[in-house]
């Protein structure tokens, strides 16, 4: 018996995400972005969200002021105009992290770790707010896990055990985010008949709570 529950619509799959939730959101730009789950959140006009993702292109959520905080590595570019507007109005805040630090902070939360040490950012303003520690004569920054309540993930194929395969470079942040929040919600392009070949599974269904098939 799988823990994964299959939902009929994206709206059903995100129906209990409350105002003020912290959500991990997969994708790198548009590749692997769980647009149907985000659209369903926007439809419900959930507010006060903290959204953790590589980019800040959550236009559907910005349109009605749903986001309180964005945690990302790259908040600029053509898809982030809506964010810059809310940021400039003072309606949302930004926490910027180097991409590798961001993804590792997400991983440690899911892996039951208290954080990790890195040299990335030392001696620059990217280290602001982080403590230094010396290990074996070398200095590192202490990085804390990013604890989120939900992960919104886009995969390509899934089976009814919740096993997932991502498509091409759409794997990116999705694979780690699927493991990093207490509730992992996944939109897939296809829920296959039968089961995926165990050797080909990218993320085990053991991590996946909710699965919904979407058209795009």
């Amino acid at each position, binding site marked *: 018996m799988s823990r994964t529950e299959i939902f009929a619509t994206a709206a059903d799959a995100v129906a209990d995400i409350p105002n003020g939730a912290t959500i991990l959101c997969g994708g790198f*730009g548009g590749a692997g972005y769980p647009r149907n789950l985000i659209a369903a959140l926007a439809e419900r006009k959930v507010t006060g969200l903290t959204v953790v993702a590589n980019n800040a292109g959550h236009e559907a959520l910005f349109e009605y002021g749903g986001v309180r905080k964005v945690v990302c590595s790259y908040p600029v570019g053509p898809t982030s105009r809506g964010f810059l507007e809310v940021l400039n109005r003072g309606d949302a805040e930004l926490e910027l992290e180097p991409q590798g630090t961001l993804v590792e902070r997400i991983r440690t939360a899911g892996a039951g770790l208290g954080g990790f040490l890195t040299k990335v950012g030392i001696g620059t303003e990217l280290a602001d707010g982080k403590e230094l520690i010396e290990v074996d004569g070398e200095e590192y920054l202490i990085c804390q896990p990013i604890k989120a309540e939900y992960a919104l993930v886009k995969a390509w194929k899934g089976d009814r055990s919740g096993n997932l395969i991502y498509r091409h470079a759409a794997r990116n942040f999705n694979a780690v985010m699927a493991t990093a929040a207490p509730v992992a919600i996944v939109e897939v392009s296809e829920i296959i008949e039968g089961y995926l070949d165990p050797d080909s599974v990218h993320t085990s269904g053991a991590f996946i709570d909710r699965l919904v098939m979407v058209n795009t």
Partner: protein
Amino acid sequence: MNAEIEMGLWSMQEIGTRVAQDVEPNWLVNVGIGMPQVAIEPLTERGITLHSENGIIGLGPSPSPGDEDPDVIDAGKGFATVVPGGSFIDSITSFTLIRGGRLDLALMGAYEVSVNGDLANWRLRGKKIAGIGGAADLAHGARRVWIITTLFANDGTSSKLVKECSHALTARGVVKRIYTEYGVFEPSGDAFRVIGLADGVNATDLADRGVPL
């Protein structure tokens, strides 16, 4: 401008070719967004394996019109391809590779590089918001950081090679070499060492224009 043509400054394409000639055949190379892109074609023509931090090893050239796939993009979010023998990886694996010292070379653009190899390439002085992306991880993790840039900033007069960076730092003491239209330079602690100059370029003239040589 005519004087510069007479000087025989290298074109961006020539810079890309020179960089590619200096790369060993078995290196794994990350090519950054912006000016470094001029090296992609000469590198792939030599069969050098390219890494894209969003999760591609074996990045190929841009696809032909009609062959674009929204799930195959590079770190600049432009459509890309994968060469035979390539692979897709997730972001954790990609940054394990970067920080773990498995990249032989990161080619990056720059706003400024200082004499001791400090790199500023993510946020201009006075600007509030910019993206860091994977630049700091790459600058720290790659075994070598080479820069491809114009020698002077957009104002045409400010040298991007400086004593001390004035823009936000990406990483300290990481840059090993800088390729420009005027020549190739290396940070040597208190100045830049000239590795090679384009025809007709004179180091004394560059020093007069504020390049710390």
